[in-house]
């Protein structure tokens, strides 16, 4: 086994001066699919946003090693160009046409619109991005943009929230495309619904109160979560 593509070491993150992520350690190898479960407010989304240096998410301690290099202090666009893509969870309308942004991403990352033909976004292309989009449309549009980035590491923040079953299948297929492209995946989910549509999950983690408290087989962990909730993980350490 080679060295991991991504390694988080004792990562601490603050938002508005409050510590949300409290010492996360995590390794993801090339092509691996990791699922990160946890209750609301446990720090999952904050972890992903901090990893790509989104404004307002301050790493106060620890390191983010990507492809052998500490990228903690790089700017968001530098990380994106290294191959790290973040699928956002909440979408506010952006004053840019979906097609314009897609075209720019094709130019920047050497990709092609053929990659997103399965996502049923043709009818959205000439619209202002995310304005008036349904939940499913927004997720599919965002996932299309992720595919066009041709990421080496895709950080997917709740791709299964707020989407209908039909869209969930489409989202699952597109994540499988990312897997086929050889991308490593770190996927945040509350419910684990999306996992049923993925061709493979290598490891699942549970995050509670800013820490990863359990890692292991997804089916095993989901069984516990579905029977007993996340409360049972409080106080434990991975």
């Amino acid at each position, binding site marked *: 086994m080679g060295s991991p593509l991504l390694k988080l070491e004792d990562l601490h993150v603050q938002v508005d001066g409050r510590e949300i992520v409290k010492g996360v350690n995590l390794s993801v190898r090339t092509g691996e699919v990791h699922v990160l479960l946890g209750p609301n407010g446990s720090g999952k989304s904050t972890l992903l946003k901090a990893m*790509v240096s*989104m*404004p307002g998410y301050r790493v106060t301690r620890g390191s983010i090693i990507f492809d052998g290099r500490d990228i903690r202090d790089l*700017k*968001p*666009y530098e*990380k*994106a*160009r290294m191959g790290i*893509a*973040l699928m*956002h969870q909440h979408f*506010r309308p*952006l*004053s*840019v*046409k979906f097609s*314009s*942004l897609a075209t*720019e*991403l094709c130019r*920047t*990352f050497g990709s092609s619109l053929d990659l997103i033909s399965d996502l049923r976004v043709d009818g959205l292309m000439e619209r*202002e991005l995310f304005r008036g989009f349904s939940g499913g449309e927004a997720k599919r549009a965002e996932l299309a*943009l992720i595919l066009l*980035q041709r990421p080496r590491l895709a950080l997917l923040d709740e791709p299964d929230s707020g989407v209908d079953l039909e869209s969930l299948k489409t989202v699952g297929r597109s994540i499988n495309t990312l897997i086929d492209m050889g991308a490593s995946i770190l996927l945040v989910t509350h419910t684990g619904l999306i996992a049923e549509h993925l061709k493979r999950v290598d490891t699942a983690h549970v995050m509670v109160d800013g820490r990863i408290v359990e890692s292991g087989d997804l089916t095993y962990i989901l069984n516990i979560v579905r029977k007993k909730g996340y409360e049972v993980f409080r106080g434990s350490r991975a």
Partner: protein
Amino acid sequence: MSVVEEILKSGSVAVYLQRNYEVIRQVVAESLASRGFILEPLSKATSRDWVKKLLWTALPERIMEGSGAFIYVPPGVKIHAPLTLCFVVSKGSQKVHNVVVIDRGSEVTLTSACSSVGSGTVHEGYTEVFLGYGAKLHYFMSHSWMRETEVVAESGIVAEENSSFDYLYTCLRAPATISSATRARLKRGASASLSTIYVASPNSKSKLGSSIVLAEEGSTGEISSRVVAGRGSYVSLPAEIEAGAPDTRGHIECRSLQVAPDAYVETIPVLRSLSGGSQLTHEAAIGKISDEELGYLMSKGFTEEEATTLLVRGFLELGVKKVPEPLKPQVEALARLLARKAIG
């Protein structure tokens, strides 16, 4: 290659070029001329009584020293390739009066390019447009001015029953002072869409007005403006829709982006209903680029400058409601150029 040859090569089927008061070229494709299409100086066209009677019926009368172009499109002629008018002012003052008549059932795309190449110049342009029953005109007015040029531009449109008028005004290089007004008067079932995309130059004063009168039943009008206000600029955007008949609809959308803290922008939407049964709405917004939008795009691999350019370009592009297919590449290229200019 001359400017006219370039324009013809780009697909125009008729070109009129005037510098100051001198007509430099007028070219009409044989296929059009043989069908009764007319493109000539207005001073010549007024030898026809019916043309003379039209003068200053769509705009308040002005005393004019000079003339502009006259276009007549006979009934039932559909011209998809653009017709092009070019006016250049290189010294002193240029006053231009154009008259465009699109007869019953015809459809035309007209581009009008005005520019200055001399400082201290003045351009006054007055264009009267008459649309016959069921006629369609896609009108793209594109300006490019020296900073020191003073510009006054007014257009008046009279749209007969079931005709439609789509108008887009853009300015590649904005002058220090500009005042423009476009007024459309619509009869039964007619429609008009007046769009402006504009980047105000630093320390400039711009007044860009639009108005539509929904004079008869079933007429619909839309006014849309997207303006980027740069350093020290003053921009006023009066927009007015008056409904004078029932079963009419009108909408005003004014959006402005301030990319400098000392820019001044005012939007003045006015809706006036003189009759029950009209539906008039407006939305106006003045804002700046949000950190959230920038952060999102930076996470997609764009530098702050690239992200800002994308957002400004998108802001401008989204203001273009109805661009005819032949003009789309031109308008998109223009939006890209304007976006780069807007962020300096």
